[in-house]
């Protein structure tokens, strides 16, 4: 019994010294959590409402090009891409028997080196793609339009079409 107590004493004694040596009462750490939620935001920062007035023959002949028409501002803290589509396959307004299709509007990311793509009611890649997303961050994308209905559709002043931009991280 005496030997057991003696053994216990020698086991515990270094333990007390150890605790004292490492007591950090003059140095402490404290953690602060910063909880960052997923951000995925797209805003039409300029050019939300575009008007194309075909008031000259030359405009009907050549169409109207709207350079730098619309600016999108994106914020995303995950890899992202943006698509574009029209709300419907055809414009509203005009004459029902001769609907004006969305494809008379062509779009491109601003820059003469980029080619125009006809607008449709299905999502099409505007910036990056689902398989090749852009890295997280914030910035702007500027879009050009070329609108060319030609002489096919009856005159009217109420042709209208909604364009939908979608940012995604899926």
């Amino acid at each position, binding site marked *: 019994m005496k030997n057991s107590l003696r053994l216990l004493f020698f086991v515990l004694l270094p333990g007390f010294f150890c605790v004292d040596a490492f007591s950090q009462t003059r140095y402490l750490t404290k953690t602060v959590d910063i909880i960052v939620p997923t951000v995925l935001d797209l805003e039409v920062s300029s050019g939300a409402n575009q008007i194309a007035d075909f008031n000259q023959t030359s405009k009907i002949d050549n169409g109207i090009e709207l350079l730098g028409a619309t600016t999108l501002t994106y914020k995303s803290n995950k890899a992202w891409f943006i698509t574009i589509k029209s709300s419907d396959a055809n414009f509203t307004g005009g004459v029902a028997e001769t609907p004006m299709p969305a494809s008379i509007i062509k779009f491109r990311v601003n820059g003469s080196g980029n080619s125009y793509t006809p607008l449709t009611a299905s999502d099409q890649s505007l910036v990056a793609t689902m398989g090749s997303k852009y890295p997280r*961050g914030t910035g702007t994308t500027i879009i050009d339009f070329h609108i060319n209905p030609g002489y096919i559709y009856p005159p009217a002043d109420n042709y209208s079409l909604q364009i939908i931009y979608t940012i995604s991280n899926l």
Partner: protein
Amino acid sequence: MFILSLGIEGYTQTEPALPSPCLNNGNTKQNNMTVTGTTTFTFNTLTDFSNSESLNNITVEVKSSENYRLYIAGEMTGLSSSSTNTPIPINTFTVSATNRGTAPATITLSNSYLEVAQFGTKTNGLTHVLTITRNALNNFVQAPGTHTLTLHIRYCQY
């Protein structure tokens, strides 16, 4: 086994280099520091990323038999180790303390110790409330999730 684990814990702390002077006089009972409170920054709206936010939930109480200075450093841990994440820059945060004495009113947090409070005599318990400010974080290059800022808090006699 118990003793071994204490030893390991003591060595795994990566404290920044000590400021100078940093005296270690007196016994532990009369010379110690306690830190209480928790701080969590959240972003409830998109505009929160463009604004700063200040929280004052952390309190440091110092008992000292001699005059002392209080120092704070910081480091980002947690998500910052992820290969795809950009850590929150440590200088996004500023810290100020009550009862700061001649210490600067506000410090911009860094990996090295900076003085946040100074007290020119002994005390049986002086409280320093820390105000931690997170500045704008609106470049969205940090991955979503919980990022952890570790504050190193050191009390030194001088």
